């Protein structure tokens, strides 16, 4: 990284996170994965845990996340990241272990693994990126695709009578006793991005304090597969996604509340 002399009487307020590698990502222009990666990296830097963090990448658009984080990383089978994280954490109790998963990975094929990892109160942190579509495979219907939303596998719009309803994972996981902190945030504007970062930090702190399982669901966009410009996608998400997937905490245990009120 190029080093820049900071003139006297000025302070550095924005820098490249240590926990990110300096590699160009493969994400589409306008994709919010880059924003969420950066938030996770900033939190790892601020908590000073980069050198004991192990991430687990999913199958989906963020399958190559291990290239972008400057921490130890494993790449899991589709949906199995929480099981792999369980194995890693149980034998490395001092490590900080997180999974980074999309909606197809976590809310369809990996539903059993996330539910049971959360229910056991595994001391891991899950960052769940929900953009209501299968991005990598070309825009098919996801478990979180909205009613009537058109995708390449619901060409006339999601018909809930035959395809079922979008699944609200934050509510489902929040209902489990092993989960101590579960929240849904969105990265559609600056305010949401700042709140998302605060939530991710709380989720990692819950792990560091040994409190239990924590998950941050992050509402996200997929302008490419939604067939919109990045700006249109952010506006569409604000208008449609938040109605079905309300923002806010679905679980804050007393122990986590005490942590955030310190």
């Amino acid at each position: 990284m190029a080093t820049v002399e900071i003139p006297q009487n000025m302070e550095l307020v924005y820098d490249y996170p240590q926990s990110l590698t300096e590699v160009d990502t493969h994400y589409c222009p306008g994709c919010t994965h880059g924003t969420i990666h950066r938030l996770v990296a900033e939190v790892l830097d601020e908590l000073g845990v980069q050198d004991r963090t192990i991430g687990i990448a999913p199958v989906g658009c963020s399958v190559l996340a291990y290239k972008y984080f400057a921490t130890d990383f494993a790449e899991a089978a589709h949906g199995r990241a929480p099981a792999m994280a369980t194995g890693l954490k149980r034998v490395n109790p001092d490590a900080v272990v997180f999974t980074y998963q999309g909606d197809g990975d976590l809310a369809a094929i990996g539903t059993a693994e996330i539910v049971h990892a959360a229910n056991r109160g595994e001391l891991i942190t899950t960052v769940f990126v929900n953009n209501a579509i299968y991005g990598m495979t070309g825009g098919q219907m996801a478990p979180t695709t909205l009613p009537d939303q058109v995708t390449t596998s619901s060409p006339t719009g999601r018909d809930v009578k035959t395809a079922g309803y979008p699944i609200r994972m934050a509510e489902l996981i929040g209902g489990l006793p092993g989960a101590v902190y579960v929240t849904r945030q969105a990265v559609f504007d600056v305010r949401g991005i700042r709140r998302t970062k605060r939530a991710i930090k709380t989720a990692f702190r819950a792990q560091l304090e040994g409190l239990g399982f924590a998950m941050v669901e992050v509402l996200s966009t997929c302008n490419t597969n939604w067939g919109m410009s990045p700006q249109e996608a952010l506006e569409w998400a604000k208008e449609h996604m938040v109605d079905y997937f309300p923002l806010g905490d679905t679980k804050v245990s007393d122990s986590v509340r005490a942590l955030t009120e310190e």
Partner: protein
Amino acid sequence: MTKEFLEGNEAFAEAAVRAGLEAFFGYPITPQSEALEHLSKRLPELGRVFLQAESEVAAINMVYGAACAGVRVMTSSSSPGISLMQEGLSYIACSEVPVVLVNVMRGGPGLGNIQPAQGDYFQAVKMAGHGDFHMIVLAPANVQELIDDMVLAFDLAEKYRTITMVVADGSIGQMMEPAELPPMRPVRSPEERADWALTGADGREPNTITSLYLGAENLEEVNLRLQAKLKDIAANEVRWKEYQTEDADLLLVAFGTVGRICQTVVRDARERGMKVGLLRPITLWPFPGERIAELAEQVQGVLTVEMNAGQMVQDVRLAVEGRCPVAFYGRMAGVVPLADEILPELEKLAGRPSHSSTVKGGQEAQ
């Protein structure tokens, strides 16, 4: 050390503990649940990790995660459970992390039954998951061999950074017989973990463990490395046992429980004046094909006996390459072939050399 009266399933679990097992993740399934039960008590006592997973799918991925951390880890299951683990096995094979697993085989296909069987030979030897890979497969024929194979399984898995599967069957898992457990090995300290392990990048560059290689040339390179390793294993780790093959003019080939039964067949046949020998493969992969080819030059015929419809016999035929007739006798679905049924098959082979394949009911297996 003295011999104790031990049940197969508990014996292999305890042998693993003594071989330095640090973590076990598994899901209950008959006929091997006693292993999981033993470890649920034993590992926490020793301050090591035991976890009962929500499924075999989760169990193998927990094993994968722990293996990435460079610890000695295993799971055990039985046929339908192994099918569920095949996805994980393929990822583990490509990632080259050491893993040990036990398949106490039962009758299939489907839910099948819980009787001893060998119907998973193809699965273990030929198609443990998608893509080009093999596991090392060890096939014990009694409780003592099961114990010894567990220790060997960990050593081979770590030496080659590969998967070693021990295939027993319901009768070896469930039977009790006198056997000797190995001495307790010390567990590796975290500092002794391999340099590729995921432990947190403290004072070093980050490690990545993946089975994803998007470029065709990159993935071919990985495959070439895997194939070179398999070639190395095939050259160095073939194991088998022979009984009275020196002067044999008929050869039995059988593994596991029925391999043990065939020792009785050799005795009975020799009492009737037939010069019969037995080759019992210990490694099903790599297969002792070269030795079988040598013996095929010496004998008038080979009879392969299995507790399935005829799976290993394909590898025997590939090894024999027409040097002599190869016959097959098998019982399926949990029926164990008896010495009295096998002997007439040998007589048939001696009197009428032909490529006969017999499965009970008179159907051709090949």
